[in-house]
């Protein structure tokens, strides 16, 4: 199945992913902020089921969780990057949003929109011209949480709560 991948560059901060003026308790306002700081046109048009491809240090900056939640709000299929900033990475795992680390070179220019096929089983993303990237899944612990649909859904299944710790 063809889908679109949106390619962004290095050090894409949470302020570019979701500018502070889209911070709201209203999901409909929040939704409009996706990558608005990077490309306001994309913010309007990114289709559900799309894939985001980023360079190193994706999500550096604020701990505001809306910057992760917005990917779920917009039904993004996968967010992959050469590396993730720490809190952003945790937020994505905690919300159960699929992520992967890119282990190969990114052949597409930043700022481009590419038609791709995402092969979930083999963890690759390929375009018609034969260009492709390889992915590595997050750690087993993170995978366990994502597969439960996020951290809060995992409490009863994965953790014994100890109130005397």
């Amino acid at each position, binding site marked *: 199945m063809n889908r679109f991948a949106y390619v962004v560059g290095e050090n894409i901060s949470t302020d570019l992913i979701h500018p502070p003026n889209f911070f709201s308790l209203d999901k409909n306002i929040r939704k409009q902020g996706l990558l608005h700081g990077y490309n306001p046109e994309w913010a309007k048009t990114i289709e559900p089921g799309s894939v985001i491809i980023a360079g190193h240090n994706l999500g550096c900056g604020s701990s505001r*969780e809306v910057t992760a939640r917005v990917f779920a709000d917009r039904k993004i299929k996968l967010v992959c990057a050469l590396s993730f900033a720490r809190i952003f990475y945790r937020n994505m795992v905690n919300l159960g949003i699929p992520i992967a680390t890119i282990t190969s070179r990114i052949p597409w220019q930043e700022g481009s929109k590419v038609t791709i096929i995402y092969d979930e089983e083999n963890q690759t993303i390929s375009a018609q011209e034969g260009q492709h990237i390889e992915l590595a899944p997050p750690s087993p612990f993170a995978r366990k949480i994502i597969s439960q649909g996020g951290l*809060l859904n995992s409490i009863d299944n994965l953790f014994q709560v100890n109130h005397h710790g």
Partner: protein
Amino acid sequence: MAQSLTSKILARHTLRQDGDHLLISYDHLLLHDATGALLIEPFRKLGKPLAHPERILAAADHFVPPATAERAEILQQYLDFTLELAGIRRSPFTGICHQIMVEDPLVGCGQFIIGADSHTIMAGALGNLACGLGSTDILFSMVTGFTWLAPPKILKLKLQGNQTTTIRGKDIALQILHTLGTTTYADYAFECVDATTTKLSMDSRFSLACMGAEMGAAFFTIVHDEITATFLQAKGVKTPAILADHNAHYDARETIQIPSEPLVAIPPAPWCVEPAKDLKHIPIHQAFVGSCTGGRLEDIADTVAIIKGKKVATNVRLVVIPASKKVYLDALEAGYISEIIKAGGIVDAPSCGPCGGIDKGIIGSGQNMIATSNRNFPGRTGPGDTYLASALVTAASAITGYITDPREFAP
């Protein structure tokens, strides 16, 4: 085996290992209005009790006082919510959450601290492991009493050199960002030793540890010494210091020389650093002294040392926001606030102000701001361009109207 300070604190707080991760208990958990408000609905939905209410410190600082009707509503929802949480430590309107955390007499050294804000890392300046987490992480910890963590790699960071009268913690943070960038040691626990001849003040250390967030550090712990001891004693903390063992293992080591001249981070990121003296061509519209990185008494005293008896440049806004009620009262008592007002500055109540780009004092497009805050990513503090510097540089720039090396004002 000889252990680092980081490993010791982690070991003391580890409840158990879960595969490749540790489950860690915390001594303090920090909430504030902007991210705390996001917890209300999921907390009610979850329907579980708090594991350790007495370990929770709830500030209100981002929307204080609120600049829009929507923020007033968010703030009120949050305040009402924290009232429902019996047994927590509420401290609304007393300052920026990270500052009231380090002022809190229950916050000592050797502790594990988490908070719903990335700059929670600042409490590491007292010899703690402190880190910021997102809302879901925090909610999880509120009800379970622990958090999850992959054991971090540890960087021993040594500060060396001679601190001159115009160099502050902010300059050192910028020097580190300039030298190491933000990805080389991403996710490492930084264990920082102050081996400078003069030793950094506690206020400078807070400002330095705060910017550990921009360095990509998981933790930024400053190893306990006599400066830490004096600060902790003054607030009545009696916990004995924990130190690293001699010959402890570190995954990496770096030595940073104290910069010889005041530095400025230029847009678009805190790691784009230039000497202040090379930026005279940048006119400014606003100078902001405040935030958890640069709104303490040292910063306000520095501001006054520069502006006393002078006037802020025409058409430039000098906005000063003390980081906490205590800082505000101390500044009032020292006579600093009246000097700022006489020089034409604007003083606001303890809060985040324009730092997070969501409250009073943000800048418009085409405007330049020089600020003691911590981030200058595009859009962070409004649509304009933000330059990051110490209070000395910021105040000097407020007087001239362009980015200025404070050594020009030296007596």
